[in-house]
């Protein structure tokens, strides 16, 4: 069953807010993790790991570097396969 984009955005926003302490309003699809949300590479790994659990998808280490914006992460999760 495909995940719903707006649900994924809401869920991912929760994870980002919890990790960064930023208000939910500052998280939007166009925002860059590094430049706008001050998410460094380690925080990014944590966010991705929590997202895997939350949405039951697999996001391999190699894919993480290409996820620059929140929107790209949402797209990736929606399209991602469930873990085996």
């Amino acid at each position, binding site marked *: 069953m495909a995940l719903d984009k707006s649900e994924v955005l809401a869920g991912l926003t929760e994870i980002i807010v919890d990790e960064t302490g930023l208000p939910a309003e500052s998280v939007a699809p166009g925002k860059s993790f590094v430049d706008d949300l001050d998410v*460094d*590479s*380690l925080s990014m*790994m*944590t966010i*991705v*790991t929590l997202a895997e659990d939350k949405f039951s998808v697999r996001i391999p*280490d190699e894919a*993480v570097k290409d996820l620059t914006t929140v929107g790209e992460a949402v797209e990736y999760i929606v399209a991602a396969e469930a873990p085996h």
Partner: protein
Amino acid sequence: MRGSTPPTPARAQILAIDGVRGGRLVPNDDLIGPIDSSDEWIRQRTGIITRARARADQSVIDLAADASVRVLARANLAATDIDAIILATVTHFFQTPSAAAILAERIGARGAAAWDISAACAGYCYGIGHADALVRAGAARHVLVVGAEKLSDFIDPTDRTISYLLGDGAGAAIVGVGATQGIGPTVWGTDGSRAGLVGQTRGWREPGAAPPTLTQEGPSVYRWAVTAIPKLARQAVAAAGIDLADLGAFIPHQANLRIVDQFVKALKLPDHVVVARDIVETGNTSAASVPLATERLLREGTVPGGALALSVGFGAGLAYAAQVTRLPGGEQ
């Protein structure tokens, strides 16, 4: 077999813990040149301000011997009281003879069974697991468990994946027979599918090549640690029959302060549980990190003797181990 009726199972406790750090605290600024880094980057990503480094003329066995002598004195035991020595290290330059056999002789414990174990940063927790089993089975009354590393011997100063994280030191514990069981079940394992994530640059026998140094794929190890280790920690606490709230201290391997903080968050660790953060001054000392972090908590009095501590080791292998122990001192 006649005469081999197993004795009534004994109860095992940690009787004493002590340790030594390399004598020089090296600041970030001394290391950043060859890795194009900065004091700020290292502090922000790892929490490390200094790491302890041993003198050039000190060997990993020297460090292990210093820690062993101290822990014997603290336990009020003679070296001849030790039946077995388990030395966890990845920085002894010889496959054979073992560092443990030489350590036994050095501290005056000739005749003790002695062997090395290779479980990297999980080595000390593995050793406590072995010692607990030996004492409870009646195979030894006093086991000296040492985690000792001179990681600075295995550093390439131009390697920016791990070199700046590492320190030197040795921590030692004596596991012996006690009135009550003071060591919970060791929950442990390995994941060899990820053996390539942390280790040496090469084996010892590559013709013409320089000796190996240490290297890692940091981001992948970070992700594995923050995913797998909180689960392992919960299993060890459940196996001990207690709740996280019963702990006095949480003593994870000191790999990175960010990892320690992530564990605390993932476990929703109650505020009263004291968290070891020795890495800030000592750096990552692999097998020595858990006993050294424990030694600091006890020395500084942040945790009372007799409190329950959750220790967790994880690293190259990937190998991991966790157990709840009652800290030495106080009510046993």
